[in-house]
């Protein structure tokens, strides 16, 4: 049933995940409205470091991100706008023997799961790929077809493609309540929808709570810093085993430094502020790995709000209480790589089809089952 204010599908959340879902559904013939409480790409999507990484992923996510990688290669063509994707490769460096042993164990684990994308590099292999890396480094785990993209360009490209596909993007509209049916009570009035997707990121758990579903997903702000441009000194995206670090030099020479340091979340203001003492820890790790960075100046640090789940995995799957509602939130700071895949997968679920990649284990019920276990223990 569709009323005057109604539509086939309402996607709640104008981040990259919501945009990708809205685009896929609109291309599948649905009439789609996207509601965004602030403006498109305001939080985690714009604050992302843009990593497209299958390296060192949670075992449950490896198949998904490996399936997403080929989509990134053709994404600019698909969206009709540049997304700044570069297949630069990613490496996780071992700075000591313990780290090297950990990387070897990781490589064995991935192999046992049936994947072959992660390759151990010895010292010579590492220095052949990154000649300017610090002399103490012993080796690395590498994935050659990983890379990175430009988050702002990606937001622009998805927004443009969604608009062209007929998605009705409503900015500054927040959802206050969800009633079965499905009726949404929003700051712009009531709306009817055949189906609803919760792609509300850091606020995804709040939306789930509106339909009586709990998910241990909280808002956190991953902080990132960027330097003034430097002459080229590194080739791929670099992490370090046992340390919080993600490092890459962009085409314009600037170096983006991140890696799991949390900013300070201010819930009321809906912002996360980077903490300079943590920037200090982050850049110290980076400078140890690449001596040329000692000459760099940090020009900006930032943090974007993102949903973090207790088990480090996103929530993707149908609601257990409201038929027609599908959750897709809480990507824990590594959802960027999955964006081109999650849209089509959720669109397939909306159509009642089997998703082309298994999403078993990502549903919101996984938390409820665990809670039951605890009660019965």
């Amino acid at each position: 049933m569709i009323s005057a204010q109604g539509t086939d599908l309402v996607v709640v959340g104008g981040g990259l995940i919501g945009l990708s879902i809205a685009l896929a559904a609109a291309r599948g013939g649905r009439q789609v409205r996207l509601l965004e409480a602030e403006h498109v790409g305001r939080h985690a999507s714009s604050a992302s470091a843009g990593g497209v990484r299958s390296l060192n992923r949670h075992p449950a996510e490896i198949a998904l991100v490996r399936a997403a990688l080929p989509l990134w290669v053709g994404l600019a063509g698909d969206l009709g706008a540049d997304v700044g994707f570069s297949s630069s490769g990613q490496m996780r460096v071992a700075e000591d023997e313990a780290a090297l042993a950990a990387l070897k164990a990781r490589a064995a684990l991935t192999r046992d799961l049936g994947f072959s994308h992660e390759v151990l590099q010895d010292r010579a292999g590492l220095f052949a790929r990154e000649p300017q890396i610090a002399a103490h480094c012993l080796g690395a785990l590498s994935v050659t077809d990983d890379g990175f993209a430009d988050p702002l360009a990606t937001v622009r490209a998805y927004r443009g493609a969604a608009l062209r596909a007929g998605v009705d993007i409503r900015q500054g509209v927040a959802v206050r309540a969800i009633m079965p049916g499905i009726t949404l009570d929003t700051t712009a009035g009531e709306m009817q929808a055949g189906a609803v997707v919760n792609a509300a990121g850091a606020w995804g758990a709040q939306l789930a709570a509106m339909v009586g579903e709990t998910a241990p997903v909280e808002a956190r702000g991953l902080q990132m810093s960027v330097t003034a441009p430097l002459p080229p000194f590194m080739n791929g995206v670099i992490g370090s085993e046992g340390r919080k670090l993600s490092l890459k030099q962009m085409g314009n020479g600037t170096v983006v430094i991140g890696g799991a340091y949390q900013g300070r979340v201010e819930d009321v203001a809906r912002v996360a502020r980077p903490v300079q003492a943590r920037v200090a820890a982050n850049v110290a790790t980076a400078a140890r790995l690449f001596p040329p960075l000692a000459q760099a100046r940090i020009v900006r640090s930032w943090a974007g709000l993102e949903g973090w789940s207790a088990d480090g995995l996103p929530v993707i799957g149908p609601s257990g209480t409201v038929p027609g509602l599908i959750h897709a939130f809480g990507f824990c700071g590594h959802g960027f790589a999955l964006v081109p895949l999650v849209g089509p997968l959720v669109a397939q679920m909306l159509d009642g089809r089997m998703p082309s990649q298994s999403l078993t284990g990502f549903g919101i019920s996984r938390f409820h089952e665990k809670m039951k276990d605890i009660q019965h223990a």
Partner: protein
Amino acid sequence: MSEPDVAIVGAGPAGLAAAAVTAAAGLSTVVLDDQDAPGGQIWRAAGAVRQDRARSRILGRSYAGAQAAIKAAAAAGAVLRSSCDLIDATPAPALVWLDRGAGGLHEAAPRALLLATGARERPVAFPGWTLPGVMNVGAMQIALKQGGAVPVGPVVLMGQGPLLLLVLAQLAKAGADLRAVLAFDDAFPRAGAVQLLRAVRGDPALVAEGLRLVLARRRVPVFRGVRSVRALGESRLAHIAFDSDAGPQEIACDWLGVHDGVIPNTQATRLLGLPHRWDTAQRCLVPEVDETGRAGDTPVWIAGDGSGIGGARLAGLRGQITGHAIVRALRPDAHDAAAARTAQMAAWRAGPARALVNTLWPPRDPLAMVDNDTVICRCEGVRAGAVRAAVAAGATGPNRVKVATRCGMGPCQGRMCEPLLAQVLIRAGATPGALRIRPPLKPVLLGDYETLGATE
């Protein structure tokens, strides 16, 4: 260092006056300033200027009061720290600064934070304004104050306002080769007699000084009705071309100093995420504060030109008023109500002189000379056309334009482009707001983070 009661950012007239009040009341007070010596922009390099007879002859008049203000703050026990750049601050309050002398980043969590970061010049954009040789008259004055440097080669000034007149007089005194003034202001003052009288009564010295400067401008050829200005040259400025009431002109020059008044420096207040309002007449953002300079119910105060332009004398008085308000909040028993009232009365008397300045020199539309090819954001090289296109495509706020075009995303974080961007939004019927600022407020060398210590 134990935590200070009061941290003040900016050692200009407002910061120094506030520090003298809070320190005298027994509150431990530290004043951080990015210059090499206290005094702010208005009293830049005050000690050096006093000791250099040549600079003192050119600049001396505008330095009256500098030594007294610096001595009063120090004598009251305030710690004045120079060469310290504000890097980050939160309304907690907490702040992080870079000490360029001792090296490294440092942090403090005071009970009260006072931002007295003063004014900056309104950007004057036109085709060619990014050419080397084109600069704000403030930059010319800094060179004069800092090292007694006078531009070599022909100089043209363009714009309006007290600072332009002052720098013109100072450059003339210093022997600069002044070729012309391209005036934005009218030939006939638009102030009424009543307003003039009130200003004279409130601050006769300031009005007399202004009159002297206006008359002094006559020594240089003045062009009016200036439009279609272009700065031209290969790698640097060689000449300027423009239309005027006297017809099309071309003047060869090595230097073009531009100025259209000053606006509050909102870098720090935007970094803190404090609310701002748009001042339509002054075409700028102003932080929202109460009559004592306090930002809402936060432990953060703003004094001096940073909370709305008033000029140096008013800044000192507003610094005093805010200093008393901080004492009342932190140490009520030491509050000197009579002194606070005296400062308030003096500020009221000084007000009309500023109102006269605002009437005589209302800011020009900053887009009046900006075509689509003119760069708005110098850091990222974003042109006006790209910004206009983004606004037309639905980017209805400054931060949306930033995401869409990178305008305001460079190292200066909108210091230059924000007023221009705001005007594009206004013309499109949108509401201008504050461009978000990310720390560090100034670029920080990686090695300077070491002193903060790794927390995890």
